[in-house]
């Protein structure tokens, strides 16, 4: 059994290999979260519409995204975006678009549950006060739906953060790619992958512990 040699892990390694990848993973997560929640909320509102020509396309989009492996979705976008726009697009930008579009489907399911968790009487109350549909949604329903679902939305974001490692498939330079490149350059893949696992674990575990605490606090406030 070969002993682990972590001596290559120093400041230089972090600045040369890991930092850029880490920053990209975080950026990708945050942009896809913001865009995904926004798009997902729109999709959820569409799905809850009484008009089938609005509800059906949204349902089809969400169900399609949810039934395809994420890696295939990443490959699809990487192939289709240059094909449709006629211009090549870097793996990083392609990843940002893909994750926003993909996560929107998952966030929309959460927001749909959130909207449905708000009592129907509140819609009626909004209507009775003379609010338009848009006002009722924006001022009354969505803030409560968002608040009720906050822990679930954040849990989904932790999953999203872990899933960003799949941009490996199109060669984008993320945290995992940083570790694997460093491991190859220093010929220490074993240590590099172990460290990658530790870093992902520490980030995900501390975030999910924080979400658990938040959940407990929200539950008491209610």
């Amino acid at each position: 059994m070969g002993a682990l040699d972590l001596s290559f892990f120093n400041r230089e390694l972090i600045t040369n290999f890991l930092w850029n990848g880490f920053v990209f993973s975080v950026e990708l997560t945050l942009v896809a979260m913001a865009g995904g929640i926004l798009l997902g909320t729109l999709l959820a509102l569409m799905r809850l519409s009484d008009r089938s020509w609005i509800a059906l396309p949204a349902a089809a989009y969400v169900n399609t995204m949810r039934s395809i492996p994420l890696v295939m979705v990443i490959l699809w976008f990487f192939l289709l975006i240059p094909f449709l726009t006629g211009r090549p697009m870097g793996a990083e930008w392609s990843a940002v678009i893909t994750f926003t579009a993909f996560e929107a489907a998952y966030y929309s399911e959460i927001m749909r549950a959130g909207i449905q968790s708000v009592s129907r009487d509140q819609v009626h109350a909004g209507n009775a006060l003379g609010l338009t549909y848009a006002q009722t949604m924006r001022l009354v329903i969505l803030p409560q739906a968002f608040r009720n679902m906050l822990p679930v939305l954040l849990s989904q974001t932790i999953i999203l953060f872990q899933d960003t490692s799949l941009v490996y498939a199109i060669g984008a330079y993320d945290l995992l790619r940083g570790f694997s490149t460093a491991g190859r350059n220093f010929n220490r893949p074993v240590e590099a992958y172990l460290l990658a696992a530790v870093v992902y674990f520490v980030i995900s575990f501390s975030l999910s512990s924080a979400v658990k605490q938040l959940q407990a606090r929200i539950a008491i406030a209610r």
Partner: protein
Amino acid sequence: MQFRWEWEVFLRDTGGGETYLDWMISAWGWTLTVSACSWVVAVLAGSVVGTLRTTPSAWLGRLANAWVELFRNVPLLVQIFIWYHVIPSLYKPLQEVPSFILVVLALGFFTSARIAEQVRAGIQSLPRGQREAGLAMGLTLAQTYRFVLLPMAFRIVIPPLTSESMNIIKNSAVAFAVSISELTMFAMQAQEETSRGIEVYLAVTGLYMATAFAVNRVMAFFEARLRVPGYVGSDH
């Protein structure tokens, strides 16, 4: 820009005496095999770990908790790399093991953390009186689990198992990273070799969706057969 379908691409020879269609079918077989084997590993490990989390033993519970947190907080792709690059070099006998087995263990254990959560929730959803009744009748703890708690818990756990089973098929796509010749690997290589990415991806995506749908139907059948009368979703 003018696009013309070229489905004939599947009849082209790969250069190895078989067509791309043949290759895709065998890749589908690998996807199904990896998924099925991982499912068995996941259900076995997940049931044991999930059950341990409900036993009165504190340290067994902590051990099971650690298992769940460990496999849930590291991305699947990283776990596959760990099984493929790290574990065999730390434990030499595993170097002889084909990468297929390593991927099955990786995907199986990854999924076992999720299944353990479902099993734990299933057992804890049973009225406390069932455990107490079992123990009061003189059954040992093991017997109480074997004859009272687990038979009920498993029937409750089937619906969430359906979605995990569909997830396993989707997650098996990550095996491309260690060169298992499954559907996603096929899609990437055939796209590169033929430049007919759209046809190739459409076919592969279709196979994934068809497989997930088939699994969904099979699980729905078991769900209906194993439903516990008197519980939500039961007709009786």
